[in-house]
């Protein structure tokens, strides 16, 4: 249960940044995630100074995009991962990575609290399942996310326990579409 409580806490911090431009909340998020983002960038092949610069950029982007974060569709760690991955690719390629269209939600389409809690539980379950994978398979997954595997090597990579979280996200998307239309 502690994992869900922690996730709810991070969601509340992102909300405080979005709604109140709360710098204390940001410092909290920074202390937890900045060293992990930097570690991720170093594992992805960046040297210390590039990883530091890129990490600061990722954390600044988090502040600027906080009002677009949807806790019914992604955990805070997942959302930060996507920002870090995109920024990493921008730096390697020197131009902006194409990203799917945003699905914005205004005050009339606040995420459903039941969806948010269910997504948090599924995210925690997925993380546990990945931790319990055989060492060899877990390492392979990590390498894929650090950018160490080519696209064709990834094609052979299966067996990820994704079913539940996929249907959860699908449901949240349907509700969001309904609220927007």
């Amino acid at each position, binding site marked *: 249960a502690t994992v869900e409580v922690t996730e709810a806490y991070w969601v509340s911090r992102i909300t405080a940044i979005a709604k109140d431009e709360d710098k204390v909340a940001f410092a909290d998020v920074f202390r937890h995630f900045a060293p992990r*983002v930097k*570690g991720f960038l170093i594992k992805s092949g960046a040297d210390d100074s590039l990883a530091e610069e890129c990490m600061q950029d990722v954390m600044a982007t988090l502040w600027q995009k906080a009002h677009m974060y949807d806790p019914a569709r992604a955990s805070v760690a997942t959302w930060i991962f996507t920002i870090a991955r995109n920024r990493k690719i921008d730096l390697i390629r020197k131009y902006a990575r*194409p990203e799917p*269209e945003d699905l914005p939600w205004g005050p009339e389409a606040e995420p459903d609290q039941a969806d948010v809690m269910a997504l948090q539980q599924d995210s925690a379950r997925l993380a546990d399942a*990945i931790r319990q994978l055989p060492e060899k398979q877990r390492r392979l997954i990590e390498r894929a*996310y650090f950018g160490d595997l080519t696209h064709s090597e*990834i094609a052979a990579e299966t067996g990820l326990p994704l079913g539940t*979280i996929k249907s959860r996200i699908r449901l949240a998307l349907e509700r969001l579409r309904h609220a927007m239309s």
Partner: protein
Amino acid sequence: MIDVTHTVPDSLLMGYATGALPEAFDVVISTHVSLSDDARARLASFEAVGGAVLEDMDKADVAEDSLEKTLAMIGAAPPREAQPMPKDGVFPAPLRAIVGGDSDSVKWRNVARGAKQSVLQSNSEASVRLLHIPAGQAMPEHSHRGMELTLVLQGGYSSEDGHFVRGDLEVADQETHHTPVADDDGEDCICLVATDARLKFQGLLPRIAQPFIGI
């Protein structure tokens, strides 16, 4: 939302999630995901794995003035706004950003038999282009040396692999020899096509046309 029947395989979504695809493929996948809630949900599930990897990362030491510097960056920049698709648009946001507008902003070049194309990006790894095929018109039969992704944005076409309409993605590879034919329903077909190697055309005339088409 369109009910997309032909969609992207998991291996390509994981490639997009991890950042392993050539940029030309990223253009097609991000545009397809903009049109398909199923692809968006599956992509988000692969990104959730990335979130779990990030959460379990060994922490690196950050610079002493790291937080201060980041707050200074934040003070200098305005918040970024989401840009939803205009209700009547043909191109989803990622494609509009590359073209610099919707389908009426494309700088088309005539290729063959009334077909037009616009190359968006091309490098040694892969290329991506927009194709405009008049209603009822066939593309030359061709096979593929690598992978080809075709995403329908307007109209539709049929090939040996089925019928494809807006939002549908066809994945062709070395085994595929197909002759896509645009639907003959009065609406021209616009597709976004990425290839990771030059195509092989069957027959003499198309082979002559190939350098012009550039695919």
